[in-house]
């Protein structure tokens, strides 16, 4: 190799080799110069390979996968922050209720009631089209119904995630999530009733005591130990939530 080639290679910094690799941050003429020297200078090629090895090794920095509850928490948070769809929000604006706490129900009793209604709700098909307060095109009615169904399904998914979270850990975040879901639950129950879906509305109303129970966990001394029966009821409730959600969620578009 000529002296000129060595000189040219030594004038190429590692930083330039990095930018050359990315084909960015260097003008076209400089990129071509580096290309030419790389062809002629083995030492420069070796230097470049060592740099590329560092960059390749950076690919070993694999980020962790989010846990199983990630999507549920994300959707629950977005639902509460972004807000309900316009149709539901309009309904709620017309039919606001005051916020006051109900009497706390025992989890097992509440689960039994919900299971009964949930089984009934599990037979739900597509929610019926709502009686419009003002004339609406059929397409608009159907779209509103689908929007409501999708949002309710998302709410049920978040509730399901909450039950899974509460049953497996003593995560204080479960109480906070339950509290956040109470208002949403009431919102969707009211919207379902306004849409004429009494069964779904009743199912959602029966969830509220459960959510309040989870939002305000009793001190250990005040409750009986949760035995196998309560755990089984919770598992059944989770199953019913999934079944109801599955009937509400829009079917995937198959190509």
């Amino acid at each position: 190799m000529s002296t000129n080639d060595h000189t040219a290679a030594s004038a190429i910094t590692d930083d330039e080799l990095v930018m050359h690799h990315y084909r960015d941050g260097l003008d076209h003429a400089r990129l071509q110069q580096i290309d030419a020297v790389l062809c002629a200078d083995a030492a420069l090629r070796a230097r470049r390979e060592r740099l590329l090895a560092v960059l390749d090794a950076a690919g070993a920095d694999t980020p962790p996968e989010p846990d199983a509850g990630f999507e549920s928490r994300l959707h629950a948070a977005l639902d509460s922050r972004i807000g309900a769809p316009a149709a539901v929000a309009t309904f709620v604006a017309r039919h606001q209720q005051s916020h006051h706490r109900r009497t706390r129900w025992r989890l097992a009793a509440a689960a039994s009631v919900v299971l009964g209604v949930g089984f009934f709700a599990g037979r739900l098909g597509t929610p019926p089209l709502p009686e419009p307060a003002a004339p609406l095109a059929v397409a608009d009615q159907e779209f509103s119904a689908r929007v409501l169904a999708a949002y309710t399904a998302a709410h049920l998914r978040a509730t399901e995630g909450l039950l899974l979270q509460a049953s497996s850990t003593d995560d204080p975040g479960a109480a906070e999530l339950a509290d956040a879901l109470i208002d949403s639950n009431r919102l969707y129950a009211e919207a379902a009733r306004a849409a004429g879906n009494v069964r779904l509305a009743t199912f959602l109303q029966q969830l509220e005591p459960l959510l309040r129970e989870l939002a305000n966990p009793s001190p250990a001394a005040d409750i009986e130990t949760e035995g196998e029966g309560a755990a089984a009821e919770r598992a059944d409730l989770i199953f019913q939530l999934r079944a109801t959600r599955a009937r509400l969620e829009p079917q995937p578009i198959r190509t």
Partner: protein
Amino acid sequence: MDDHHDDWLQAARQGQPVAFRRLVDTHARPLFKLCARITRDPVLAEDAVQEAFCKAWRGLSGFDGRASFTTWLHRIAVNAALEQLRRNVRHRREDSKQADDDDSPFLDAVEDEAPDPVRHAESAELRCRIEAGMAQLSVTERAAFVMRHCEGESLDAIGTTLSLNTGQSKQAIFRAVRKLRHALQSTRST
């Protein structure tokens, strides 16, 4: 990506939350991984993802389509991740008596995660060294490097997202590469 992605995007830009939900389902996990690379903390990453989608929803009407939706969303997520880190540093400074060094939380994490090289295979040690090296980068270095190397963003885009000029973006990447190389050289010398 779903063939209907553009349809969902168009509908979301018109204010349809169901369509936006579809976009969330598509992009949530890649966004989490991007934020996790930058924050090095899954809790902060999840918060950043949430913030990113909220900002994206609010800013959808302003999305002009010059960049792809994925690129646009990922740039929002980078800033959201950086904001989570800033908040976390402020929070930790209020509660702890650590030195005034922006990198100190990450160095602490490195100490906690350092492996026993005797017990791990070479590839596992390499991965740990890279993770430690990444954790030792400054926030700006890590964000610039992740955007360039993992996301394939141009220096111009990096500068726009991180409020840097081109020279500063380059320098951030160069410092990141040097630190990572040093971390790997430590592997070879052990």
